[in-house]
């Protein structure tokens, strides 16, 4: 009975951390960017206000759209939440860690993207098609790069289950300083930038048709549906940052259930996440957006780095 209660509490903690801090991370990145550009910028709590406002607003649906357009926001949230159950944040192993692994995470991300890209085509708008086409093309390189870079870390633990991998890494910190891990980290960082639609791959703040990717795809969405899509995107950012944090710097992660360990873990997690968020803001501020057809070069770099890190592990071992 106590076991069930602990698991339920852990589950709620895991979901709450991601669902509730997701807008905050987005706010921190925005604020940091503004400060670097000598602006005051909106409050870091602004994304919460945006989401609440959007949740209250009416939804405008294109006359050309099919049921898929209204179905996608719900599916997107659902698939993102399944991912959240599988990617450890402050405690490993997660209660439901055995239902899936990193391959499931990658493919659930792909599931959300698949439907979002279809929804982009649904309204018959040129913008939507443009966004969908670009998003799927970029994803076709980013997705394998992501899987490979995580595999390179996962094989050290002999499992693709993220909770097991993270737990085993945090108990043997020496294995973190491994050449294949460094390559994998760089690859996964580039993947994070691309997957979350950041400069230099995509610009989350533009609505200029020449450059936009993700924003073009969701251009037809408004009101509550847009809130769901934005929220899912923010949660995706948290998922990627926790992957980076916990696969490469799992120091401080709670592996046993005591208030002290969990407390330390939450503090460490928030600290590491903030550092990474600031890092992403720095990358965004110091780089120009790449021309669309230069983007594949960057992504191919990530893909090759990830492949090299996996081969390196296979050849020289841990």
């Amino acid at each position, binding site marked *: 009975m106590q076991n069930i209660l602990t698991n339920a509490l852990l589950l709620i903690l895991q979901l709450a951390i991601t669902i509730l801090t997701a807008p905050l991370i987005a706010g921190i990145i925005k604020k940091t960017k503004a400060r670097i550009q000598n602006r005051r910028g909106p409050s870091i709590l602004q994304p919460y206000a945006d989401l609440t406002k959007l949740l209250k607003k009416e939804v405008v649906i294109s006359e050309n759209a099919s049921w898929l357009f209204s179905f996608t926001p719900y599916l997107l949230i659902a698939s993102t939440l399944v991912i959240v159950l599988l990617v450890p944040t402050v405690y490993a192993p997660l209660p439901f860690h055995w239902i899936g692994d990193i*391959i499931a995470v990658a493919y659930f991300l792909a599931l959300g993207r698949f439907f979002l890209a279809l929804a982009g085509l649904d309204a018959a708008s040129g913008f939507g098609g443009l966004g969908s086409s670009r998003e799927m093309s970029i994803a076709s390189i980013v997705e394998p790069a992501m899987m490979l870079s995580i595999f390179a870390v996962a094989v050290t633990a002999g499992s693709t289950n993220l909770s097991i991998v993270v737990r085993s890494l945090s108990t043997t910190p020496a294995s973190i300083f491994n050449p294949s891990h460094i390559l994998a980290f760089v690859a996964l960082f580039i993947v994070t930038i691309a997957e979350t639609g950041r400069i230099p791959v995509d610009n989350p703040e533009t609505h200029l048709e020449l450059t936009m990717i993700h924003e073009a795809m969701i251009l037809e969405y408004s009101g509550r549906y847009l809130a769901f899509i934005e929220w899912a995107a923010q949660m995706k950012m948290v998922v990627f940052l926790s992957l980076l944090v916990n696969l490469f710097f799992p120091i401080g992660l709670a592996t046993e259930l005591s208030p002290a360990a969990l407390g330390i873990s939450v503090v460490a997690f928030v600290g590491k996440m903030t550092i990474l968020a600031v890092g992403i803001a720095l990358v965004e501020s110091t780089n120009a957006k790449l021309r669309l057809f230069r983007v594949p070069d960057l992504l191919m770099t990530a893909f090759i780095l990830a492949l090299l890190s996996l081969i390196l592990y296979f050849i020289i071992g841990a």
Partner: protein
Amino acid sequence: MVFIPKRALANDAAIDRAKTGVNVGFILSLLGSLTGLLLSLSIVLSGHSLHVALPQTTPLGVMAFTIDQLSAFFLGTGSFLGAAISLYSLGYTPEYFHKRHVGLFILLYNTLFLTLDVLLSASNFVLFLFAWEVMSLTIYFLIVFEHDHAASRRAGFLYVVMSHIGTAILTVMILILFVQTGSFDFTILRNGSHHITLTLKSVIFLCTFAGFGIKAGIVPLHIWLPEAHPATPSNISALMSGVIIKTGIYGIVRVLFDLLGPGPMWWGILVLAVAVVSAVLGVLYALMEHDLKRLLAYHSIENIGIILMGVGAALLFNSTGNKTVAALALIAGLYHVLNHATFKGLLFLGAGSVVRATNTRNIEELGGLARKLPWTSAFFLVGAVAISALPPLNGFISEWLTFQALLLGFTSADLIVKLAVPVTVALLALTGALAAACFVKAYGITFLGMPRSSAADKAHESPRTMLAAMGVLALGCVVLGAIPGIALSALNPLSGSLLGVPMTNAVSLAGPTMMLSASPSTSMAPVLMLALLAGFAGLPIVAGLVMGGRLRSRIAKTWVCGIETLRPRMQYTATGFSKPIRLIFSAIYRARHEIEISEDVSPYFKPEIRYEVTMEHVFEEKLYKPAMRGVLSVARFGRRLQTGHIQSYLAYIFIILIVLLWATG
């Protein structure tokens, strides 16, 4: 073998024209398929093989059948799809009533099933090869069924040439086996094969892989496939792509695992290399294809590649002695056989429904069909999600198993394995991502947006039998994804017995959870994922209600920068959609563009722009065209001998006689 007489009966009934013929023919083939399904299920569940030897009617005593676990698995897969396709054909075939000889079609259809069943249950190579050849010829007639289309005739010719090259290679393989063991019978071959020298075994391996590979459609032997699949009526396309090309996989597994046993490591490496190239090139060519059925045909090449990744990894790990992982890899490959049959069958049937409604296969002329064909579009979407290996459907499960088998292979000490495995993993991941992009294009352009032609605008939904058949297959995609235990209960013992480790469960089940015996901490519970996905979809509904009350929505025009009306031509096209991928992989595509702009009044006002892109298919240009030129020049040389004068022929006979006397004396 209860179902064969029934099918023979169906052939007689097919002589009656039109509706009763169609009904009787397809209902009987439906019943035959269901019997086949029950039979293979009972063999799988009981674990006993079925042997039937008909009274000696031929000198070689060849009419002997054995349905063991391997046969039963392929027979079950074929019968399942066959049942769905027969149901579909009831509604689909009347389209041909006034155009074609339907009776002939039903005859060929049922002959195809008969030969398929004989092929999969034959217990010796004479019967096997006989069924193989009759099946190939039946397919040839089905490809040229719409013989007034030049494309069908060309596809048929290409098919029959490639198919016979394959049969010739297989005959060589079978004769080598016969010379070495003195028998065509599988049981004797299985026991006698370990006496064969390694060199000869390798020759047998190469013949097997090439001969069966032609049927399976591996790159570079695939060229017939994208021509033949679209040329046939859609129910036959589904059958060919779902079942017939899998007979190639059946042959490869039968000979390499069941009869020959473990070989050197390079066998596995070669199969993996071919598998990877097939998968990546298959999906890349599919991305550039705008003919819906050709697109699906290229995806068959891709999926044969994925199946062969499992089979190749099994060969590789079997030769390095890692039997548990080899069993896992074989399970992955064979599971994908079943899954591909289900979702590709579904997709071809869906394409058939689209073509029936719109009379075009060109997706650039479609669009908006989700409203006109709601059921077809929903079922096609299930197939598209499944083939893109997205969870929680069946394609994901078999790709997951393939990934796991490859990742667990790193324990091998050889450098070549250590390089081959990560590269295969990388390209499998790439294939999956590209397949998703391709099906966003295929589904999005065909079913979403606005209709791009009046044919698409006037489309009507298909009859209920067709929809029911697609529904069954769509359900199959969900069930085989959510409850993998169904397939694993057959595949665990099968892969164990093929690799000589009978009691190993490479993938064990604990409740709904799959666990790998090679890596105990890796697990997957697909049905829970499905449940969680459904449950979590409720969360945003609740969140919305709590934060903002009931959902208010309004229908409005799509935003098009203030232009008054949105026209279908303003939508993204399939060509436009896949352009970024064409640029990224330009080294592979070698695309040639042609842009023609006509100017009437001034350079600023262009009434017409013609844009054409052609892709160079590397193997056709660099392999087949030179080979064809070679054959033709040899033929031209040969023509000189054919003078037409009787005295020169007499001279030839005389010369040959002298040569023979000299050679034997």
